[in-house]
């Protein structure tokens, strides 16, 4: 995602992270999210203390590409698991076990399967963390006293300055038009 060329700075010299606005109800923020999406913003988020059904469609969030990454890792794991066993008992150290042929595929299946699962599980967890930019120790929003209410009773939209369409005045005006309350500038990063 192209980073906004312009860097906005406050009077005190801090970088602008974005603009935050609060909304009264889940329905309000849902419709506001639709408008922000339609205005073409891409780097922004909705913060709510509870899940809002369908908010991902309202925000135009695309489906994650994590499954493709997991599948690639899973197949790699399964392939490596099979190769490892085949090389060990079929090539490097051949041994007769119960009169079965060297390198018979049948006994390899459980471990192939397990390594496939292991790689998929790890890639799912680690990939999820990486795709989400986690772990992260701080976030500019955490400095906002009112934002902390998003874990209690506040619904908020924050549009980030890294967005190509971000403009301190216009974005603020748009959030105001959409019915946002307590609109504020977020500093940091």
């Amino acid at each position: 995602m192209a980073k906004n060329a312009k860097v906005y700075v406050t009077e005190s010299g801090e970088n602008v992270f974005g603009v935050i606005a609060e909304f009264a109800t889940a329905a309000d923020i849902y419709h506001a999210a639709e408008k922000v999406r339609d205005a073409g913003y891409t780097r922004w988020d909705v913060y709510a203390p509870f899940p809002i059904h369908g908010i991902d469609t309202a925000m135009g969030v695309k489906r994650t590409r994590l499954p493709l990454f997991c599948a690639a890792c899973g197949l790699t794991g399964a392939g490596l698991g099979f190769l490892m066993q085949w090389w060990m008992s079929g090539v490097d150290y051949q041994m007769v076990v119960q009169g079965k042929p060297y390198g018979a595929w049948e006994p390899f299946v459980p471990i192939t399967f397990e390594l496939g699962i292991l790689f998929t599980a790890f890639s799912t967890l680690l990939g999820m963390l990486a795709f989400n930019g986690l772990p992260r120790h701080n976030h500019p929003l955490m400095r906002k006293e009112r934002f902390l209410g998003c874990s209690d009773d506040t619904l908020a939209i924050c549009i980030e300055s890294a967005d190509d369409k971000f403009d301190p005045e216009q974005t603020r005006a748009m959030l105001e038009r959409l019915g946002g309350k307590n609109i504020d500038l977020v500093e940091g990063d």
Partner: protein
Amino acid sequence: MSSIATHAHDSHHAPDYSHDPRFRESNIRASGGSLSMLCLVVAVLGIGATVAAAFAGPGKVHAMASFQAAAMGGLAICLGGMFFTLVMHLMAAGWSVTLRRQLENMMVLAPIMLIVASVVPLYDLFVGHGLLYTWMSPEFSGNVLLQKKAAFLNPSFFCVRLMIYFTLWSIIAWKMNGYSVRQDQTGDKWLTAQARFSSAWAMLVFALSTAFCAFDLLMSLDFRFFSTMWGVYYFAATAFSSVAFLVLIVASLRRVGKLEGLVNSEHFHDTGKLMFTFTVFWAYIAFSQYFLIWYSNIPEETAWFLVRKQHGWQYVFYLLCFGHFIAPFLILLFRSVKRSYHALMLIAVWMIFINFTDMFFIVRPMVTTRDTVGETSPMSGLWVDFAAALGVLGLLGFLVIRRMAKLPLVPTKDPRLPEALHHANYV
């Protein structure tokens, strides 16, 4: 959601959809006159060709094996319909209410398909004297392995068991279908609770009777062979093929413009997940059975697979590995495939085909285990197998379409209908 709230105070009756345009007659009624006739023609031609093959070229044993494989494939579809009807009630599933009528239509045909699947064994028992089912042959009456199993594998008990399966499945089908039909008429929501109660014992009966039926009609083909996983193996086939058949029916109905607003991509997404589930389940069961037999290397068990891994049957074995597991597994992983009923329909046709292939792999090699191997290629005369499979599928199609024409295509007064109509997958 709103309909749940409006009807919450009404203690006895399901939500009223009689004025809902989605429940208009043209949307929930199907006639299928010409298609059922086409199916009947296919059935007559297919079964006729199989019978003809018994008296010409391929021979009697070949024709019997082809027909038995096909009949077990057809029976699997009906028994799977019974399984899913019961399991949907037991789970109090809301999302699948608009699919349930088609499962019930498959379920009520289970006793009829049992008769179809009993023709060859009973002919073999009374007339053929063990042409296909080796234990019925006087040739083996002195066999020590057969004598050990004689308490179970004897003509009279065999017939009694077939009658027991017929009775039990008739009772389950009649009861479960009865709740559904009566609810359509009266709208009494407590019928759903009764159906759930009956499903509990019916599920146990279903599990045991299906397993024993699979022992009798498939495993006993070679009396020396035994596998403790056999019941589960056939159950995997029932669930696998019936969910494919369900998708085929419902997607066809959608294509001709029925069930609009009642079954959508959300429902197909979930049936797609079930197709995926039972693809994996079959692979798990099939591999576990094969693996344990391969590892333990007990002659009575190993001989069964030994035949099926040579003389050309090994290609069927590879086809099953690839076509019954790997290919559908990889294809059904994709979300977009599961949400498109056009794609699911193609996969469903393939799944039904590959399930018949699975039955073929079980039954048909019996022809060469009896004959001296090497005279004729075991894979010759495959047209008989296709004819038998098409014949049985034609018959099943004819019966299913006739049933579909009798009742609405969906339950019209089920208390969980709102759940099915608002069904959505959020992931």
